[in-house]
């Protein structure tokens, strides 16, 4: 939904109004008395504090929070729409996952998050503060924090001086200054509760070296924060660290006009007939690998021409919000489980010993010929489309989305990067087939990985079935972590290197959807405007949806998704697909994880619906009740140092 500008600035307007009015009243009434009867120092100090408050407030409001500009189209020219949604990177020994931002078209750096209000990715995203009508991120967190501290000080001073004034004038309660002081005391007393609380909260955050987003989403509940430098160093860094430069205007650094070089004639031997501006090769990994198109290095290729038959599988959420990642960030601060916020899925640190990728592969696709899973209201269970740590449940038809695999030029293209490679756009066919086959097995246990993967050509049937039941074929664009680790292992030559997976041009966000994000000038870079497909294909259920569905409670579908640990079954199907040797497949110490092979689908769900349990995880209910409002992944989200 598009927020009107007026609504957005209203809280900031009120904040400014209250601040200025109360400060002015304070200076005019009680402060004058203090100046005349006590000392000039009081108004002077108050003036300094007020100035500080206003300066910090202004900076927090108007300073660029550390926005990372959108990537230009040519950065992500990978035609392979199976590029993974996540990329792993090791930071100080902890694996952190970087999520592909559909709006901004790059993999979000660690601690970066996409703000749905501002519709931009912000570095070290803290939160979006409505009172300053700005994101709080790397560049302006210090000013926001100092604003809170100085405002607390200012409010304490106003409160105490006004109270003293009142006490001194308690025999003249009907006079204007006294009445004003009384109002000031009341108002400031009431408002001081949230302000002091927030200031204290941020003091703790600064000491721990966390952001609000990380704290609320419980990223580091396990205890280890790879971004922390120690309490003292955290405080110093937060308050006295370098002021990072804004990236919004690179011309400030490189000059308005790009420097003109003199290209010698030897560099001009370009066979223009052979080379077109369309032919660029994006190669992004440290290992120097090509994109895997089989033609070896040095081969150019045309930019992706998106198949026109590819349906625009726009999620309802997307059309409602207009911004792909909107739901992600709207719920960021209210999500209470570890995989929820975009922050968490962007760069959550996962324990190397825990495998959290398996659930991505837990597609639950309701076969069209089965009434199973149809819920009143058209809900039906769906597979988890996101990574293991943040299974997103789509409980409504509308949230199913995905690319029509059949519509792609190569609907049954095999996975390139090895089994289980997850793309940013959709599920690999074999896994769709696998799940379809699993589903069609009439709720029996899923077959072994080999059987499942050997099933072929069911992707078409799957799509048909989905449509028949009113669903939209979804891109199960979630690379399981384990699988991704596999992929990383294949490609990455060094421990620190990571492979940027193939970009996905055909899921370029339609900029018009984004509520005003700039239109990609595809013509200039050779892109066909048909390429402007909504990026729904890459989008998985938002954490908000998942959370809300989680909180619904009674819905078996919802509850099914909740215990992540359930999904980490060691059964061959999941293990073979989604375990990574790089990460020991231990998921969680909970008992129910390890002794129950979990078909991610029907049997469980049936149990939740009160039907006969085929394979039921009793612990699912337990874990549900244990953490009704806390993080869904509280149990399983642990970071080992």
């Amino acid at each position, binding site marked *: 939904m598009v927020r009107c500008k007026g609504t957005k600035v209203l809280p900031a307007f009120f904040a400014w109004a209250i601040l200025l009015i109360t400060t002015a009243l304070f200076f005019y009434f009680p402060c004058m008395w203090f100046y005349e009867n006590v000392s000039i120092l009081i108004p002077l100090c108050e003036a300094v504090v007020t100035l500080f408050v206003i300066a910090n407030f202004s900076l927090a409001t108007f*300073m660029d929070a550390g926005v990372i500009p959108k990537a230009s189209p*040519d950065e992500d020219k990978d035609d392979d729409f199976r590029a993974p949604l996540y990329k792993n990177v090791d930071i100080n020994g902890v694996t952190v996952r970087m999520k592909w931002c559909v709006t901004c078209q790059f993999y979000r750096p660690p601690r970066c998050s996409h703000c749905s209000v501002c519709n931009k990715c912000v570095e070290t995203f803290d939160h979006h503060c409505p009172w300053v009508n700005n994101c709080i991120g790397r560049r302006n967190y210090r000013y926001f924090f100092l604003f809170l501290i100085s405002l607390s000080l200012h409010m304490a001073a106003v409160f105490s001086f006004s109270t003293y004034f009142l006490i001194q004038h308690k025999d003249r309660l009907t006079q204007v200054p006294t009445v004003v002081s009384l109002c000031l005391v009341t108002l400031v007393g009431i408002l001081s509760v949230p302000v002091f609380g927030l200031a204290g909260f941020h003091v703790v955050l600064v000491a721990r070296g966390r952001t609000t987003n990380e704290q609320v989403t419980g990223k580091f509940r396990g205890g280890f924060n790879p*971004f922390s430098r120690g309490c003292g160093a955290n405080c110093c860094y937060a308050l006295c660290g370098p002021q990072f430069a804004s*990236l919004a205007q690179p011309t400030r650094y*490189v000059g308005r006009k790009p420097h003109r070089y003199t290209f010698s004639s030897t560099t001009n031997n370009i066979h223009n007939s052979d080379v077109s501006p369309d032919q660029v090769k994006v190669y992004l990994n440290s290992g120097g690998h090509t994109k895997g198109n089989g033609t070896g290095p040095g081969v150019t290729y045309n930019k992706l021409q998106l198949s026109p038959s590819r349906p625009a599988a726009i999620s309802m959420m997307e059309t409602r919000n207009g911004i792909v990642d909107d739901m992600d960030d709207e719920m960021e601060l209210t999500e209470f489980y570890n995989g929820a916020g975009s922050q968490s899925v962007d760069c959550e640190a996962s324990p190397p010993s825990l495998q959290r990728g398996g659930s991505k592969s837990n597609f639950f696709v309701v076969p069209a010929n089965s009434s199973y899973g149809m819920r009143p209201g058209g809900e039906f269970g769906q597979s988890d489309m996101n990574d293991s740590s943040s299974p997103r449940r789509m409980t409504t038809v509308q949230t199913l989305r995905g690319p029509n695999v059949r519509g792609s030029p190569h609907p049954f*293209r095999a996975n390139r990067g090895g089994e289980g490679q997850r793309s940013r756009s959709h599920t690999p066919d074999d896994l769709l087939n696998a799940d379809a086959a699993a589903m069609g097995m009439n709720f029996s246990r899923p077959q072994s990985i080999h059987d499942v993967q050997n099933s072929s050509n069911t992707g078409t049937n799957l799509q048909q079935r989905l449509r028949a039941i009113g669903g939209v074929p979804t891109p199960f664009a979630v690379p399981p972590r384990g699988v991704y680790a596999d992929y990383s292992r294949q490609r990455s030559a060094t421990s620190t290197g990571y492979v940027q997976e193939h970009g996905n041009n055909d899921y370029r966000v339609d900029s018009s959807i984004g509520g005003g994000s700039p239109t990609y000038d595809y013509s200039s870079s050779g892109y066909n405007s048909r390429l402007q497909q909504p990026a729904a294909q890459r989008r998985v259920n938002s954490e908000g949806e998942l959370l809300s569905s989680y909180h619904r409670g009674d819905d078996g579908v919802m509850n099914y998704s909740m215990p992540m640990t359930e999904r980490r079954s060691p059964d061959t199907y999941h293990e073979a697909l989604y375990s990574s040797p790089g990460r020991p497949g231990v998921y969680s110490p909970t008992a129910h994880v390890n002794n129950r092979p979990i078909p991610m689908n029907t049997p469980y769900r049936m149990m939740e619906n009160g039907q006969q349990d085929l394979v039921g995880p009793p612990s699912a209910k337990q874990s549900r009740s244990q953490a009704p409002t806390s993080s869904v992944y509280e149990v399983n989200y642990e970071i080992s140092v």
Partner: protein
Amino acid sequence: MASKKKQTTPTDDFSARGAPAPPTQKVFIQRDYSEGTQVRFQPKFPSELEGKIEREKFEYTLNTLNEVYAEAEKMSCSSCCEGCFACLTAYLLYCCSDTHFEKASSLTEMFLSSFLTLILICLQCLKKVAKFIIEQNERVYVPRGLLIIDPVERGLRVIEICIFSDNPASTPARNN
């Protein structure tokens, strides 16, 4: 809100940089996050540049860039002083430097920019990087048919190296 400008590649206009034709290849060097969120690029030599440039030169360029960025992000006495000074002036210098406000006039902006260049460490480092890249391009890369694009133009996410070569392109492999 309607978009106000087209999202174009910052390096689309190669003719402005003196290139006779658009690059045949672009190589993107990604960030290295192994040490945290500080700005650092992977010093690994990309295979596309094999034969086009000496490995040592490339690594020198990249390591120097990493050093300059590290200096920008280092918490040092000067950065503390910068913070204190800004605080004492009630952040006037920051207010002037990078707010969302439109500058009143270009003259004011020039004055403030020049003043701020002396003060802001990060700003200095980014300008240093820009100068270094220009110098490297002129001396090393452009003569070899390469062009380094300042990562700041890409939001400090990647270093873009454009390859202007006469590689006869084989039949473009059409991706699925």
